[in-house]
């Protein structure tokens, strides 16, 4: 009892010391992320960075933003526990959660049950927002701060049209994706949009995310002689990339490869990633908006590496939540949801607005002209170089030595 008392006194003293600067109690944002995974490891640092910047400018209406970090070890169960802890123990006002769709799908009902605003910076499954459409009143607390798989498929197709079909006259493709929540709508999207841009889908290979030996998969794909492999991989990354290079599979990999968005990927693969294309919403050196490059610079200065894709969105999410709380005039959850729905914010990834109630994907990001358009980057000599869209491109396509392709003369 005595120690409890002295502890309370001590914390009061700390509170008093800082209360000179801060008018009211802080706004707490919980971050539940995968500290050890390539894509997830940027989420918490990026949120921290955003909070520090906001606090340096006086916080939100005089309230300081505090980030509380939870490592979920990529597990749904640990995430549920962390979410409960965040809400009932640490009394957070909002949660930024995970890049894994499975985790977000497990947390979505809890955000509803505990009436706590939740934004995911990196999950992609369309089901997240479809659930909101089905049961809006209960699940309206969840916001999808990253592109849905269907939108991602559309962006990859747009890029493939400009980069592959037109200059190289490619005609056939094989879809290669991992078996996971986010790839089901992604593959459906690919199946629909690839033929529309003139790429015939000759086969569709889904592999287990536990796969370690990709030799049979690549040999099978090579036997089908497609012009390009369209990828949808996130849980796997290093192994298919390295084996693609060591087997010298003469077919480009193009599409979504979440691990390739991280700057350490070159080292992890011993440079095998040379020539791989991946979709992203932002990239190093690409000024998608005036905020992008200052963020990347600050992140690199502070943490020594470049953020993964979920780092950009996580950084934006903190600003959006802060903005929503400011507009809602406080942290009442229902008012925060209303304010979030009215978001119109230019972040590091583009202009962010959410689709409204009544849409088949409420609370999903708006995409396309005027909103988020996405990029296509390629790894070239250890650097991530943006090659699409043209107005933001920093270089042109190069091929690794084992891929012999020539652009049709035009």
């Amino acid at each position: 009892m005595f120690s409890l008392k002295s502890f309370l006194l001590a914390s009061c003293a700390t509170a008093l010391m800082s209360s000179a600067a801060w008018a009211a109690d802080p706004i707490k944002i919980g971050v539940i992320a995968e500290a050890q995974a390539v894509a997830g490891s940027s989420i918490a640092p990026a949120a921290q960075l955003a909070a520090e910047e906001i606090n340096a400018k006086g916080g939100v209406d005089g309230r300081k933003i505090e980030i509380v970090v939870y490592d979920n070890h990529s597990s749904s169960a640990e995430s549920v526990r962390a979410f409960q802890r965040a809400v009932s123990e640490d009394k957070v006002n909002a949660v930024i959660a995970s890049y894994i769709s499975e985790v977000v799908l497990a947390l979505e009902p809890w955000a509803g049950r505990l009436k706590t605003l939740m934004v995911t910076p990196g999950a992609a499954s369309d089901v997240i927002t479809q659930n909101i459409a089905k049961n809006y009143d209960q699940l309206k607390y969840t916001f999808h701060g990253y592109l849905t798989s269907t939108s991602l498929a559309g962006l990859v197709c747009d890029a493939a049209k400009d980069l592959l079909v037109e200059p190289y006259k490619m005609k056939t493709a094989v879809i290669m994706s991992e078996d996971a929540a986010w790839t089901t709508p992604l593959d459906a999207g690919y199946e629909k949009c690839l033929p529309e841009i003139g790429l015939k889908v000759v086969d569709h290979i889904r592999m287990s995310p536990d796969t370690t030996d990709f030799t049979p998969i690549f040999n099978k794909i090579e036997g089908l002689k497609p012009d390009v492999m369209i990828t949808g991989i996130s849980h796997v990354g290093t192994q298919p990339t390295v084996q693609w290079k060591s087997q010298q599979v003469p077919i480009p990999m193009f599409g979504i490869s979440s691990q390739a968005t991280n700057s350490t990927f070159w080292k992890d693969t011993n440079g095998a990633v040379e020539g791989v294309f991946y979709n992203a919403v932002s990239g190093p050196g690409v000024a998608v908006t005036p905020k992008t490059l200052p963020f990347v610079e600050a992140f690199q200065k502070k943490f020594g590496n470049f953020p993964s894709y979920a780092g950009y969105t996580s950084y934006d999410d903190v600003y959006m939540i802060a903005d929503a709380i400011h507009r809602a005039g406080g942290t009442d959850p229902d008012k925060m949801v209303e304010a979030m729905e009215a978001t119109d914010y230019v972040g590091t990834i583009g202009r962010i607005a959410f689709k409204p109630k009544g849409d088949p994907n409420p609370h999903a990001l708006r995409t396309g002209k005027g909103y988020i358009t996405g990029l296509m980057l390629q790894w070239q000599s250890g650097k991530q170089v943006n090659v699409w869209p043209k107005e933001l491109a920093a270089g042109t396509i190069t091929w690794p030595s084992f891929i012999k392709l020539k652009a049709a003369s035009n």
Partner: protein
Amino acid sequence: MLFWQILIDGFAISALYALGATGFTLIFGVSGVLNLSHGAIMVGAAVAAWAAASEFGVGPYTGALIGILAGFILAFATYFIAVRPIQRSKAIAESEKEIFILTATLLWGIITQEAIAYLFTNNAKTVLPIVEGVTTVFGVRTPRNEYFTAVICWVAIGLLWFLVNRTRRGKSVMAASMNPRGVTLLGIELSSIYLTVWAIYGLLAGVAGILLGMFLGVSSYSVGPLTASAFSIVVLGGLGSVSGSLIAAYVVGYLETGTAYLISPAYRTIPALLLLVVVMYLRPQGLFGRR
């Protein structure tokens, strides 16, 4: 074409399985220990080789040597931390030592795995290959590294065979696996035999881990599956039978590769598991077990 593909790819992966399982079965044969930190030792060796090359910029050969050294150290650490104290403990009943060693080596494996994840994240890593490029045999284009893997595996297994059958030290190891008490009567210290066996095991597991890291890549997630696959192969072949393990490694390797090519990569491991269940029911001592 498909036939040759399965034959060549299956051969390399099976050779790797065989090398991994050989050390595992040797330890069991000589000291009755099922080392459940096996996967952690392999991954530890591979990650050490990767780290040496990518963090400190050494070449592939030096990297591989550092990796083997790491496998060696980890094997001895396993023996001295998780195995020997239990073997010598008076507080644990003889009949219960088995479960204690299983649990302790399992824990030691988890400790190693977590330490790797902490120091190097759990991203998959690939060891810088010693041999690069591809070569085409029977119309199948295969990375030279795959042939290299198979050759090294068999050279290592061959050396082991030579050691066990042609050297004095090896013969005493062999004798110990058949009759530990008899060997002590001959005046050979059993504990020095154990040390020899763990040293051989460390080398084998280290080499297997590095080859795996070059061929497929490893992450701290691979620890559990690697231990489980070595365990299955060894039981399928018959515990303690080295030749049984070699054959079982090829059966499992080809079943997996064949399934991946002919049916679907998603079902890769299932037929081998089914076979294992069938063998367990019909012939519990394994295909070539002595019991």
